[in-house]
């Protein structure tokens, strides 16, 4: 920072992180709460909008980048994590936040999720989990309960147990794992802040009701309860998950390790590299 303009400290409130786009979301969608908490967290962290990038896939929840004033990339379905990894690795000075839904992240993008956990690129991953595909009008997702018959695509239920994203993240060695609820704004903003500040891959499952296709999720308000206490002991974290009813909130696991860095070498100029092709006699 050298110019006078740059030295001026901008004090931005959370509203400064909200764009003037009107979200496509249904009134009452849990994702509004996520947007509010996120803009609060960014303001609290005094981030500069130009140095933040929100990367998303496809889904109702994945629309979130354009509703903020930071840089955004609304890519294709399921690929937010690799997009974000490419950006975060090549521009390590940026704050990179990947977001999306449970379908985007655990179904079509499930493989990337596993590898993002173990790769540990320095970025945050916020998943708005509503146990349904909202955007395509209400099909079962990987986190949908087995006996949910609300979809015409699986009218007799899914016949499969739901995935447990936190278990998956822990098994795949994510170093920061948390759960929050979109309707608990203060706790959500606090956990987001912690996740963004974390040096490494920080995953937050955010229970975010879809009031249109899962109206019964309005009842989540009564079911969520704080309970996780951050540990760096995997066994303890697995034990906590064994007791978990799916509605425990808080930071489950926090075990920092050096974040992913691609190979680095002594700098060499291109001419030197080209010389290596020369025929030697």
């Amino acid at each position: 920072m050298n110019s006078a303009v740059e030295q001026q400290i901008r004090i931005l409130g959370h509203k400064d992180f909200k764009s003037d786009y009107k979200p496509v979301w249904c009134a009452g969608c849990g994702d509004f709460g996520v947007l509010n908490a996120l803009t609060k967290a960014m303001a609290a962290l005094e981030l500069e909008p130009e140095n933040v990038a929100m990367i998303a896939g496809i889904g109702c929840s994945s629309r979130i980048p354009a509703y903020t004033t930071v840089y955004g990339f609304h890519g294709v379905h399921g690929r937010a994590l690799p997009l974000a990894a490419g950006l975060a690795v090549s521009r390590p000075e940026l704050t990179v936040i990947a977001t999306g839904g449970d379908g985007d992240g655990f179904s079509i993008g499930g493989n990337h999720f596993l590898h993002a956990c173990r790769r540990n690129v320095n970025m945050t991953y916020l998943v708005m989990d509503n146990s349904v595909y909202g955007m395509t009008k209400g099909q079962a997702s990987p986190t949908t309960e087995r006996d949910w018959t609300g979809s015409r695509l699986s009218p007799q239920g899914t016949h499969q147990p739901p995935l447990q994203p936190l278990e998956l993240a822990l098994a795949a060695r994510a170093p920061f794992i948390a759960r929050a609820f979109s309707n608990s704004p203060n706790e959500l903003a606090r956990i987001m802040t912690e996740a963004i500040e974390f040096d490494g891959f920080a995953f937050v499952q955010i229970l975010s009701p879809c009031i249109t296709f899962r109206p019964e999720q309005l009842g989540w308000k009564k079911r969520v309860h704080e309970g996780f206490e951050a540990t760096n002991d995997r066994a303890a974290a697995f034990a906590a998950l064994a007791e978990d009813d799916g509605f425990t909130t808080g930071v489950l696991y926090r075990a920092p390790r050096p974040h992913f860095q691609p190979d680095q070498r002594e700098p060499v100029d291109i001419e030197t590299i080209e010389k290596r092709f020369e025929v030697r006699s």
Partner: protein
Amino acid sequence: MNKTSDTTKDLSLALVGSGGAGVMTAGQTLLDAAAASGYYGLMTRATGPQIRGGEAAAILRLSGEPVECQDDRLDLLVALDWNKAERFADELILDAESLVIADPGQGEVPAWVGESGARLVEVPFDALTKEVRGARANTIAVGLVGQLIGLKGTDVEATVGRILENKGAKLIEAALAGLKLGRTAVDDLPQRQGLAGQPDQAEPRWLITGNDAAGLGAVRGGVRFCAAYPITPSTEIQEWLAAHLPELGGKLIQAEDELASINMCLGASFGGTPAMTATSGPGFSLMVEALGLATQAEIPVVVVDVMRGGPSTGIPTRSEQSDLDIAVHGAHGDAPRLVLAPNSIGDCVTTTQWAVHLAEALQCPAVVLSDQRLGQARAAIDPPPQCDWQANRKLATDELEDYRRFADTDDGVSPMALPGTAGGEYTATGLSHMESARPSASGMDHQRQLDKRRRKLEQFHFGDDWADIDGDGELVVLTWGSTTLPAREAVARMRSRGHAIRLISIRLLSPLNTEVLTEALASCRQLLIVEQSHGGQFHRYLRSRIELPDDTHLLARPGPLNIGPGDIVTAIENLDLEKVA
């Protein structure tokens, strides 16, 4: 090879043996030693499907003049053993003028060799290894062939020393003794076939593979990020970049799959870092959705597709030009993109560099169609020319009041704001959008951005490099990519017989320069299209874009057998052309 003299300026030879016999190392040693002695040369590999072991053939052509294509026949075949060598019968063509050197203790001479009329000489390589502790049959063969074709013994020894550099003094000593055994064994041979003359090397020549060349072209153009998932025959590009990007301050990630690798590249490029990935057909198929995103969101990216036999897993280790369709048309929606093809090993540098420059200038994806024939061949060539094609993206850096990422500019290219630039914040999107990047389903916005994206490709001045056009004549041979190599040689042969032929090799396949191509074909009376695909993809593509002459012929053949110069000569002869003396 000219049998009446002792020397020839051009020599084709192959070494065969089972896996572990070390024919590839032997072949590379001979190529490198010949290069050190001042010759041009080329080595291609043919292997069985086994990962390790299994029959293998190293095919070389050495010459006093530039060569990048194998001849139709062999002057010399050296067999360390005959294990399953018959699977190379279609490829290793022998005749009465060929010399075959084989170990009599290592299996029966296969029928195709026996029936060729080639002269057979026995050298007991394996028995010779007993004479020196630690000597190997392949090294003895190198010593023998080197001597036979007239390579300087010191060049061969120095090359072997370099290849074994880290293997310890004992091994090198044994290898040098093996070379000597081989050299002495030549004295018992009835026939000598030496390479003529040693051309001057004004500038030191290069030893390079097409895949390494593509990697070099990428970094020359400014690529500083690569994400990749291994796939034959493109992996060497990824490995080359893994070794060299970090030296240039660049970064490489091994991705979990090609969906990830292409998207990682898009993420890096969104952040302003020129990015590339390399893959082959199956991986390219997985990247198609993301390439559409790159078109819609106007993110530069380069994908080198080193083509192999397809569809599906196809023939992973052999060449084909059958990804043209997917490269040009593989996208949903109207998604024009750049498609380029190198037409020599050295051109893998230049065309990849150009692709980086174009993708960055036009903010769109560029596909480079190399193939196994170019990518995995190693050649001694003149250094590829230096050119100043650089990544030079039009950026939005100031006056960002009311910034519109997809502003409808005259040339269709809109200044791009990179993260970190205050005032430029926007959300890149695969949704149809307005100039501001705000998603829109309006027909007007959709049309406007489609028009803009088409216009930027149509209005760009690509210059003369869109094709290599060589010579004049009413007969035109039209090809692209690696089949240009045999086409050049076939045309040269026909010209030396007095025929006037024009050769056109298209480097920029999309957008196709239809106007200039039509002009170049204006005086064409007979057209021969040459391509290595079963479906005639190139021919169909051309037909869809321009009016072809009535008298158009097609030589289209799938892999795995590469189209050779002789195939093209025969095709030309069959056109009934009149000799224009």
